[in-house]
């Protein structure tokens, strides 16, 4: 008997150690499927959810498993279906609504801002709106100015919404589960290249914390705050800097609203330096909000003026030629980091030349092959 129990114990330990590596898109599909199986009040809606490609594979085959009343392929009526989703949500259903591009959701801003975000408040808590909206942001394959914007701060502006921006496969599943368990509207912004990122994803249903950023790498030299796909760009820079004994403290923002700056402030108090690298526009961006909220409380916390890296103040281009100068690349980011560090010119040159030697030869409009993970 004891031997048998020991065997079980070892087996359990072995299972715990064994990693289950899948992509973020598979993780999203798994979370959706498991939740739908468990909760018969969850309804899935969106344009193209029954397409053969299943929105980056995140909705594949769900229409075969669940009834037409629960997997509702929608007419091309973004504002209408958002209102319909709210109507279901205030009548004891949960709704997961999906937009393949964030720009489609712009047609439903009226319903999201006026009704989804405000119903709980304006009805004094009588109506809850358990609605999750997944939206795809970011660049790729020449999508151009109206198909590749990163509008996360637009949604982060409105009280009554929660805004999540996952970067890992683990959070892809965990954050979606947390969002689906939230009684009020949660928006999840997925960078299109984030879907291919792989990582360890437990099979069971689990929740990720959706209240604060996460320190994904400890370091004493400089705090770098970033999110979504940009996390991998920073990890790449960080690996190179380690060789020069420079350690970045990398913070994955994860939750844009409600914005919890505590972990960032704690980190900055230690490193006294801050860089924010955002997926969206630099002007009016999340970086401005973070720096302002730190300075309001601690005016002398920085040894060096904090800096922001984001998209330039112009529309996103389609052609590779323009994309090359439009998107900040690893070299731009590295230059911004070492500008704040107390190292001599020779070392700085060495860092940049090592970085250049490590850059993969890939086109600007497809994901960096090194950024797939597993992470």
């Amino acid at each position, binding site marked *: 008997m004891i031997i048998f129990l020991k065997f079980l114990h070892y087996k359990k330990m072995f299972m715990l150690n064994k990693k289950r590596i899948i992509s973020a898109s598979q993780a999203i599909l798994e979370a959706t499927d498991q939740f739908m199986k468990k909760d018969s009040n969850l309804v899935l809606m969106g344009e193209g959810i029954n397409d053969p490609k299943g929105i980056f594979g995140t909705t594949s085959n769900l229409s075969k498993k669940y009834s037409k009343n629960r997997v509702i392929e929608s007419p091309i009526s973004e504002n209408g*279906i958002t209102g319909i989703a709210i109507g279901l949500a205030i*009548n004891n259903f949960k709704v997961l609504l999906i937009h393949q591009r964030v720009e489609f959701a712009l047609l439903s801003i009226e319903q999201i801002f006026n009704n989804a975000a405000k119903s709980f408040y304006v009805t004094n808590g009588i109506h809850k709106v358990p609605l999750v909206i997944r939206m795809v942001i970011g660049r790729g394959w020449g999508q151009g100015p109206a198909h590749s914007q990163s509008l996360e701060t637009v949604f982060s502006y409105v009280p009554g919404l929660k805004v999540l921006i996952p970067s890992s496969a683990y959070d892809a599943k965990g954050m979606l589960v947390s969002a689906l368990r939230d009684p009020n509207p949660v928006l999840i912004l997925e960078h299109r290249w984030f879907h291919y990122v792989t990582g360890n994803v437990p099979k069971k249903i689990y929740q990720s914390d959706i209240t604060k950023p996460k320190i994904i790498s400890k370091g004493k030299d400089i705090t770098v705050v970033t999110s979504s796909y940009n996390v991998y760009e920073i990890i790449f820079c960080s690996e190179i800097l380690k060789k020069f004994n420079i350690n970045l403290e990398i913070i994955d923002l994860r939750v844009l609203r409600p914005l919890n700056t505590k972990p960032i402030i704690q980190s900055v108090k230690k490193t006294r330096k801050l860089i924010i690298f955002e997926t969206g526009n630099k002007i009016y961006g999340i970086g401005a909000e973070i720096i302002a909220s730190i300075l309001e409380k601690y005016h002398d916390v920085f040894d060096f003026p904090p800096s922001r890296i984001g998209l330039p103040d112009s529309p996103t281009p389609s052609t590779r030629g323009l994309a090359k100068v439009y998107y900040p690349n690893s070299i731009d980011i590295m230059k911004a980091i070492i500008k704040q560090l107390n190292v001599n010119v020779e070392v700085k040159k060495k860092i940049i030349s090592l970085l250049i030697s490590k850059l993969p030869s890939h086109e600007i409009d497809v994901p960096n092959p090194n950024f797939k993970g597993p992470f």
Partner: protein
Amino acid sequence: MNFLNNNLAKSLLRLRMVENEISKRYSYQEMRCPVHLSIGQEAAAVGVCNNLKIKDQVYSTHRCHSHYLAKGGNLQSMISEIYGKKSGCCGGRGGSMHLMDISVGMMLSLPIVASVIPIAVGAAMSKKINKSKNVVVVFFGDAAVEEGVFHESANFASLHNLPILFVCENNRYSCFTDVSERQPSEDLTRLARSHNIESIKMNGNDVIKVFNQSKKIIKKIKKYSKPFFLQLDTYRYVEHCGPDNDDHLNYRNKNEVKKMAK
């Protein structure tokens, strides 16, 4: 029948008295929110809502006083809400344009034109999924059919055979702009037809006719689970927003006002 007529008349009178009283006391400046009075349009609310059960749901607009009261909403909570009191139906957070009392199926009122229509369609979808025998009624004005979301909602309701009654109260004016300046024809049922939705246009001021017609329609919706569009032609006697008459601004013909008030 007499008993019923008395009942409808009583309801109409009650609504008018409440609205007149709001109009009268508004100048004291204690009701500190915009009010869109239903004076002149009460027959639509009374005629339709008197056919509804408690579990049948109503969704409304900024001009929601009549729908709220006709559906059985608590009068005290409504007045408290307009006065911005904690005891109001929304705890003072909504004001006159957000009246609701879910205990009687008065679910939601929203002030953006047509904004409530898809929400009502979603509610009707929930009735269909739950195989419920109840209907959803959504009230809106003539300008709402000019919004894209009306068409998106009507299309969805028709596509999924949802148990919903669209009630379009045509009071002819969007603030100061006459329907003839906004629509090629005052027959708005043509828009319902284009979505394969059955419809009727009728005098919305004859409460008995509205009652009898909507009774038949609601029975039909419950039996076949299909949407219906009812255009009720009516008229608002006072200003778009506020307690007074605004005819000194000369945006509508004096004879028209006199004729409609008869």
